[in-house]
């Protein structure tokens, strides 16, 4: 039995022993890829809870624009502004994912799995919403077969006149609540935005995808 166990261990050690994947046999490639997938699966769900790690003192001390993002699953993290002049307002997370916003509205994500590939339309400037506004918005995802999958929404946006107060990581903000209702066939979405008097969306809850559902975005700085 011991011989068998040792043999098996040796066998495992030898698996994937190569200096270049081109000369790896199919079997070794498969082992290596699947072993990698197991490792990633094992690491899944293990994340540093930014709600514990990040404090108001640290945010203020950093002195840079920071975004807090939380998924429905509870997984969360912070993102910094992508340096340079980008085609949108791009934020980079520590896991290599990016979120692109336009005046606080979710335009696209990458590196999040079932990514929102694009959000296109005459998107309103949230800081200038007064009363009700109707517009069209097309959102794009990837189907399981790598095809473009689109939803053409008709959206209605309403800004509340009365300000309210929210708490973002121990800092109070006076904000105006804006509701965006979008409808495509029988699909209804409700996105919420809380905008401060400088026109910055301090908190929003926006639909991302069928896999991740709604995501919470908070502007920390």
């Amino acid at each position, binding site marked *: 039995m011991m011989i068998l166990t040792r043999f098996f261990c040796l*066998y495992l050690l030898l698996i994937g022993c*190569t200096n270049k994947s081109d000369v790896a046999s199919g*079997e070794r490639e498969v082992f290596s890829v699947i072993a990698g997938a197991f490792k990633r699966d094992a690491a899944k769900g293990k994340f540093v809870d930014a709600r514990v790690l990040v404090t108001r003192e640290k945010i203020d001390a950093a002195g840079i624009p920071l975004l807090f993002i939380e998924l429905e699953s509870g997984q969360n993290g912070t993102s910094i502004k992508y340096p340079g002049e980008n*085609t949108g307002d791009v934020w980079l997370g520590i896991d290599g994912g990016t979120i692109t916003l336009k005046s606080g509205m979710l335009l696209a994500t990458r590196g999040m799995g079932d990514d929102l590939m*694009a959000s296109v339309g005459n998107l309103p400037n949230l800081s200038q919403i007064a009363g009700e506004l109707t517009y069209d918005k*097309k959102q794009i995802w990837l189907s399981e077969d790598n095809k473009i999958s689109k939803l053409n929404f008709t959206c209605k946006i309403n800004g509340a006149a009365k300000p309210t107060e929210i708490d973002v990581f121990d800092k109070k903000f006076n904000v105006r609540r804006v509701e965006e209702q979008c409808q495509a066939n029988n699909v209804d979405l409700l996105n919420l935005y809380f905008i401060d008097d400088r026109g910055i969306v301090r908190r929003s809850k926006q639909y991302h995808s069928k896999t991740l559902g709604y995501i919470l975005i908070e502007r920390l700085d």
Partner: protein
Amino acid sequence: MFKGRLILNSPIVLGVTTFIVLNASIGYAEEAKTPSAKTGFENATTSGIHEQDRTDQHVRGPSGHRLLSAKYPILPRYKFLCWIGCYKNTADPKSVSVSNFGLPGIVDMPSAQRLPDGEIILTQQLHEALARSGMSFQLLPRLGVAFRYSGHGTGGNEANGRVNHDRSFDAHLNLIEGSKYLPSVAIGLRDFIGTGWYSSEYVVATKTLGPINATAGLGFGRLAGKNAFSNPLGALSNDFKLRDKNEVGRGGTLGTINWFQGNASPFAGVTYQYSPHLRFAVEYNPDRMLREANYLKLNSPWNFSAQYRFNDMMSVSAQFLHGSTFSLGAVINLNPKRPPHGAGKETSPVPMRARGADAGAIETDETSLKNILRIDGFDVLRIQEHEAHMRIELKNTKYRSYAQALGRASATIQRFSGDHIKNATVSFFKKGIEVASYKIDLERVSWEQFTGETKIGDQGSISESNYYSPGINVEPVPKFRYGFGPYFSHRLFNPDLPFSVETGMELGVEYNFTPKLSVSATVRKSLLSNFTDNKRLGSGGGTLPPVQSSWGKYDIAGQDGHINDFTLSYLNRLSTEVYARGHAGFLEPMFAGIGGELLYMPKSSPFAFGVDIHHVRQRDYEMLFDLQRYESTVGKLSMYYDNGGPFNLEMNVGKYLAGDWGATTSVSRRFANGWEVGAYATLTDVPFDKFGEGSFDKGLYVTLPLDWLTGSPTMSQRTFTVRPITRDGGARLASARQLYGLVRDAREKQVLREQGRIWK
């Protein structure tokens, strides 16, 4: 009308047939690309919030498709076949009960339901007198096909005491999709290629009433058993009244076309979905089980089943059959369109930067460009700038999807090239040769990445380029490469040993003299094997030189360690459209030789043409340095067709290893996530009876991309080939044609197929 043997001795028949199916299927392919006039989803998705898409697809139906014939008028429209393919199948796999025969059904009897498009079903059924394994595939939304391998009987001389082992093929065609008032209606053929053990046909209707599916139908052939009556189709033609006797010859062909002839018997059944996981079924089976009479008691025509479904993927069932037999079954559902990890997860590509008047002046940052590309899995071979154009040569080592690789490379170039660079050419290299080049309009793609409107082609922002640089000679690093690890090998369909496996260690080495000239070798040593238990070492009844059927002798003699391959190879791109390869040495385990191939593959064309010629000599069974006496010169002319749609075609015409002349036709369905399911058939001038059992060479193959399985980018993919019979007629040199496979994944048609992934 249905009488007589189908003439299948001409490869042209197969070629034309496949072209018809291919052409017919294009409408189906285009459906996914054609934007819907309706508001809502514009492409198929599966569940949850995307549920609405199904309704949309059903409303649209087959109309409005841009057929291939619009672009290539030489191809006519075949509306009937288009109808088979154009109907978008979005059935829920959980709602479809699968029979022991691997296609929609009750227990043994068929139903009129249909599986989701692309569904792959693996089935296993076991009872005292039967071991049945099967693989089914929903080839088109309305058309499902199945292959089975069954061991029958008890007390026999074959493996596990079976009396015989039998391979069979089925087809199931959904004619009418059920609605509120109408039932679903389907017809099907069982065991229509082969020895006809289960030879039968059916017409069946199924009505869904909440959790109950009620099915009734008429069976012909073997299913015309109890309560048989004269064929109602006899009113249409006297040909239907009497069933012609099956003449199957050496099996493996359509044999006698006596479909829907002779008497008919009614059958019926009900399935009841008790809970999301549990389903009960009862059926009336008119089959008298005459072939099984020696070892199976038929006490009752009623069969019962309880099926437990664990998840989307797996279910098991317990059955009580024929009033005498307990049976166990298992079904595995897979579908290329249901990846376990969705669209996959990778780090974000580099975001594109603002360009134009609003942005600050930016100079090219070549260091960052190279570094980011390297981090993203590209080997950067060369970067050149000339006025407003940047040319960059890359080797993609990470992304199976060249659409994704192209998009990521484009985004990185867009960000780190200077404002004066207006367009770029990205060239992809594989094994030292340039396999594809694309021209990118950097201004246009800046905005297209977030609009989903990127067009690939002559008028698009990204187009395939004819450009290649014959002068480039980038040295591979390192020049010497090695790999050491396990290998696995298997053999199927030996009646004495239906499934045999071997594992051992393999050492692979390669030395590159230049990027295009290399020597490589693989040696193997078996460690654990039951290949040695194989007692069938003959040629299986054929009278041709044993060029392939002697594989059993190689398996046994090679146990002490053998040289799997040892070749000197040369690869080159001779011009913008011509690729060349030459190789010599121990080309594969059973043959040594010298030869080469040429591939003509114009840019953006769906067609490619190839020619290959080899002089080979059979290797000794030990697979070391000795050769046997048998030698032959083989060669093929090949035609490849891929228009970026779901179906690909390959035809090879020429001389085979045993000296026979003929043609091989392969048709495959290629999914946009790398899955490929295909079948091939080889017909040569060897008569069916001289070929031996199976009549002619044929097989099925499935390619599984590992990025689909793991959700992370990798270039790895595995192909599983199932050959019901390995004989010498139509035997091919496996290493003869590799150029098309090397080049095609990087070319425009495949990039178009996966276009959605370009900015992922």
